[in-house]
């Protein structure tokens, strides 16, 4: 029996909603780490833990009909834009009930019905796709805003700089969100980005600001202004969100015991954890109630994912072509 995921809706309007969304992302990632260790999730993941305030703050500034493109570290964006945690977890586990029917996994999770045009395995690749969607939406007379999430590593991809130029000359309704977590895999951004992130965007005439990416409300405030500007037809904006990933670049890193970050540095950023900060602003006891609810939701998501069947191998080439063209098999006997 293939289970059906329950309806899912993630409000982001109130501070408590946003705390709940951050807890959802955090809890989802913690559970996903467990499932990687258990061997349920193949390959591994790029955990979003520590960066929750960025995805939730930005998505809180968006409408349902707005679009996003995401990254290899994309679980937070996908969940904050409203994807079902049940179907997201099933996707990570390679199940037929997953968002992508088990064809995409962690790095390609997408839900077009929610405006999630996909995570992307190539750094910087989502930004020009976002710009193209923004071009199409604007030329169709719609006021859709398209957000491109990317990391500091993408600042050194030429295609991103090309995209800044195209978005600026065509005044496209794009919000560029740079999650500067300090490292492109293991390479410190400090020694890899000449001139600085916001300076690069400003060189193209794109309004740019740096915001505390560990503060969901600050991210929301900055994003709201940029989204309003884009929706009014005034063109793209750029946000550099200073943040940090508490985990390694990838789950494989746990086994490698790399020394590119000091324990003190990680501990220092953990003290700036966006979740306790958001919890402190809520009514006493509210955060605990929310945490309990999310715990139950994620337990249900786990049950759903594990109860879902793997895809039938006869369909391994399904969806390769939109017209159903069947590729030749690898052997003919």
């Amino acid at each position, binding site marked *: 029996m293939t289970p059906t995921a329950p309806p899912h809706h993630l409000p982001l309007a109130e501070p408590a909603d946003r705390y709940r969304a951050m807890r959802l992302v955090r809890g989802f990632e913690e559970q996903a780490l467990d499932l990687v260790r258990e061997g349920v999730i193949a390959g591994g993941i790029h955990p979003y833990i520590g960066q929750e305030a960025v995805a939730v703050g930005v998505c809180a500034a968006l409408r349902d009909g707005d*679009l996003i*493109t995401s990254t290899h570290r994309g679980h937070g964006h996908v969940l904050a834009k409203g994807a079902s945690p049940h179907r997201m977890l099933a996707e990570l586990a390679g199940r037929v009930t*997953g*968002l*992508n*029917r*088990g*064809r*995409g996994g962690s790095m*390609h999770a*997408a*839900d*077009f*019905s929610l405006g999630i*045009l*996909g995570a*992307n395995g*190539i750094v910087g*690749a989502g930004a*020009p*796709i*976002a*710009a*193209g*969607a*923004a*071009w*199409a*939406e604007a*030329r*169709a007379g719609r006021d859709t805003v*398209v957000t491109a999430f990317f990391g500091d590593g993408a600042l050194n991809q*030429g*295609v991103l700089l*090309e*995209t800044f*130029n*195209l978005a600026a*000359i065509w005044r496209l309704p794009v919000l560029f969100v740079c999650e500067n977590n300090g490292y492109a895999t293991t390479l410190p951004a400090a020694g890899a980005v000449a001139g600085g992130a916001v300076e690069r965007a400003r060189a193209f005439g794109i309004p740019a600001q740096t915001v505390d990416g560990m503060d969901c409300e600050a991210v929301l405030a900055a994003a709201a202004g940029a989204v309003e500007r884009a929706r009014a037809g005034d063109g793209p904006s750029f946000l550099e969100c200073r943040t940090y990933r508490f985990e390694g670049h990838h789950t494989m890193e746990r086994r490698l015991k790399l020394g590119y970050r000091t324990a003190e540095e990680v501990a220092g950023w953990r003290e700036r954890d966006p979740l306790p900060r958001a919890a402190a602003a809520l009514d006493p006891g509210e955060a605990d109630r929310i945490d309990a609810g999310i715990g139950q939701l994620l337990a249900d998501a786990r049950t759903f994912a594990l109860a879902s069947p793997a895809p039938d191998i006869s369909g391994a*080439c*399904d*969806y*390769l*072509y*939109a*017209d159903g*063209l069947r*590729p030749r098999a690898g052997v*003919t006997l």
Partner: protein
Amino acid sequence: MSKLSYTKALNRALGDALAADESVCVFGEDVGAGLAGPTLGLQARFGTDRVVDTPLSEQAFVSMAIGAALAGRRPVVELQIPSLLFLTFEQLANQAHKLSLMTGGQTSVPLTCLVPGSGSREGWAGQHSDHPYSLFAHVGIKTVVPATPSDAYGLLASAIRDDDPVIVFAPAAAMGVRQDVTWDLEPVPLGRARIARQGDDVTVVALGAPVHGALAVAEELAPEISVEVVDARTVHPFDWATLSRSLERTGRLVVIDDSNRACGFAAEVMATAAEEMRLTAPPRRVTRPDGAVLPFALELDRALQPDARQLTGAIRAVMK
């Protein structure tokens, strides 16, 4: 009666598609001016929002076309130089082609990439003379190489209507071809070969400009050898059924392929024929050399492209 030129056929296919379907749009360098030919006059007719002149940012505007496709458009991207396909291979092979499968069929990418002037342009040297259609077949992208003006119209029309990415190579050596067209131009389905000349002794598979060379060789050999010329039209998906039917009669195969030898189009056609079809003699191919980079001097440029003398020799060899 006027003769239809290859370039005019591409121009008409684009114009008809833009007129018939609001979602069709064109991105490319100098498409407003119509520098390469196929877009001439289209911006004046359809406006700058449908025919979009882009800065020299191929990777970004090919990706933008993908994004526009995800948002419901049916974009055509013109790349004026075949080597720009190498620059945008990431966008075409790794993004456009893979999104349908990776999203579990949530989306498709109806992107057409038109490359006017592929292959050698005689005298444009190493970085403007490649013919990398086999690369795209290898990664699985639908790829066509029309030989005639009516096929240029028909295959481009079908490419634009297709819901998957399609690369359309318009060989420089074919773009000068003109054709008496007495019928209404119409779409030519992807994946269907054309018997350009019927014959009984040997099957020559050709693609793009070499189709015309193969027809001339067939005519010349007609007194002694009956040559069937199959214009493959589409590299991927290849029309294996038509090839198989032809080989049932001839049992002999020569493939002429204006691209590099190793792992190329000709190699795939010969391998499949050897595995699955009736061959009474070892097949031959006529191609550019392994890993060829066309040198500048015209004598050297021409020396590396397959020619009539080589094709004639290969046909005689399989007839032994």
